[in-house]
């Protein structure tokens, strides 16, 4: 069983007449790359702001490294964050900005700043003032800041905003490398599911402050994969027939009336004919499977 390093329980945030978060439950395990997906204004940033102390919760609780309340506050040193836009002092260079935060954090290893800049490919422009940076460079500096103190957990809010495709790809590789080689856990928010899909191993879908679904990548793949759905009143009988007649092994029982077959070389018509021949009551057999975007739309209730 993996160690839980971050968890929210019934986390709620209300502003006068508006509920930004409504009883949010989330669980992040060590070495996860946890994708927080939702539209703009869904509540992703609010979760991150509460966890990092930029906003107060109205109800509920959260734990970081199994610590709550003020004790959790002390664990901040183990967290690297980039919330909303990367914000630094415009008149200072990239190096000076990171040195400022290194001094704040009491980082004594002078090499650390150089390593963080190197990690995000900003070594060549380390003496350029922040105000002269492009949006992509600003994002990279924000990520370098988050990684400055070798944290155990990195929380990044929309980190790929403003990055070009090559930049996004490089950043993805950096996340993977830090995750696999150094065991760093990531919580990354984005409204672009297809990008997050390429890097995260677990996802939470959030909309209007409500968690719609928490799902692993494998489960997401299964839900989105092209398959043949069989609706029957005899799931057990149907699975026996399918295994015996077609040698099907890649199938999943969704509930007591539906199973899905992920071997699309067999036609729906053939499956239907065989099940009926074996006295299995079939109400429908159809091909299904959706894109990630359509899956997201179906979750938030905006199906085509």
């Amino acid at each position, binding site marked *: 069983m993996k160690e839980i390093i971050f968890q929210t329980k019934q986390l709620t945030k209300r502003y006068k007449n508006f509920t930004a978060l409504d009883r949010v439950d989330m669980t992040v395990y060590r070495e996860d790359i946890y994708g927080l997906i939702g539209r703009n204004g869904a509540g992703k940033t609010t979760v991150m702001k509460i966890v990092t102390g930029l*906003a107060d919760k109205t109800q509920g609780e959260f734990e970081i490294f199994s610590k709550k309340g003020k004790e959790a506050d002390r664990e901040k040193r183990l967290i690297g964050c980039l*919330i909303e836009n990367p*914000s630094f*002092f415009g008149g200072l260079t990239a190096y000076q900005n990171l040195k*400022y935060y290194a*001094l704040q*954090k009491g980082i004594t290893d002078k090499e650390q700043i150089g390593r963080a800049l190197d990690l995000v490919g900003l070594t060549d422009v380390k003496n350029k003032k922040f105000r002269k940076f492009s949006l992509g460079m600003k994002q990279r500096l924000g990520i370098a800041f988050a990684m400055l103190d070798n944290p155990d957990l990195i929380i990044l809010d929309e980190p790929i905003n403003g990055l070009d495709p090559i930049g996004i790809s490089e950043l993805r590789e950096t996340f993977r490398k830090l995750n696999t080689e150094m065991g760093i856990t990531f919580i990354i928010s984005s409204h672009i599911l297809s990008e997050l899909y390429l890097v995260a191993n677990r996802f939470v879908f959030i909309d209007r402050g409500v968690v719609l679904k928490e799902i692993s990548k494998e489960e997401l793949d299964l839900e989105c994969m092209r398959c043949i759905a069989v609706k029957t009143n005899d799931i057990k009988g149907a699975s026996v027939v399918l295994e015996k007649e077609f040698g099907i092994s890649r199938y999943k029982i969704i509930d007591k009336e539906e199973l899905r077959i992920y071997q699309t070389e067999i036609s729906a018509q053939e499956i239907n004919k065989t099940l009926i021949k074996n006295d299995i009551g079939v109400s429908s057999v159809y091909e299904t499977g959706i894109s990630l975007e359509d899956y997201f739309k179906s979750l938030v209730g905006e199906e085509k």
Partner: protein
Amino acid sequence: MFNMIRADIYRITKSIAFYIAIGIALIMLASSIYIVQPGSVGQISVGDVSTTDYMQDTIIDNMSYEEISGLSLGDLRREMLNIDGYALDKDILASNMNLYYVFIFIAAIVITVDFSYGSVKNTLTSAINRNRYFASKTLLVMGICMLIFFMNTFICYFGNYIINQGKVSSDLWTLTKISLMQLPAMIALASLLIGIAFTFRKTSVFNVVSIPFIMVFQLILAAAVKIFSIDPKIADFEFQIMISKLSDEPSGSYITRSFIYCAVISAVFLGVGFTSFRKSEIK
């Protein structure tokens, strides 16, 4: 907290605004010393010299207002230097209210810039909590403002002594005593600015509120005295008057009352600033 202060010192020494603030303080002081007119910045224009009634009545009592007005800046300087027993440095300290505008720069550089850039988020999310953030920023602003205040005193003494060849100088101990008397008022001014900075947070709003604050405070006090027939002595606790009075051998009771007043002002503004900052959502 020490790391935070160290980091901020590193940052502000890289900022041009800090040197501008120090430069402004030095220019105000140097111009006062050279033209031999305390706190006269904004009251004198070269070629059309005019002085306050105070100058006419108490300093150059052997000249008429018209004669003084006709003097060039150089002539006025010579006249002032010839006044027996006049202590310019003491009078400059009496107009130390000018430092309020330098303190505005310091509060902006240390506190509001962090909110305006949004960089405060980086600190609060990873380095320290809000209580420590507030404490370290308060200590730093207070420290720099008090350093400037005492530097002002000593530069004033030595600058005046050197530029005016000791003709209109007081002694260093007298100036140190005046500074110590004014210290609570200076702490109150710095606290007031810290409170405003943490309440309004953005530099633009902070400037709009803090720059006219003292003038508005004076107007409100004057209006209150007139409208509600309050004892006019209350005006003695208006900052500009208080700083001036504290430099001129004030009575023991006035010192006590002014110290209490300054302590209350400091506590109120720091309290308001802290409460506002503590409850706010950082954007």
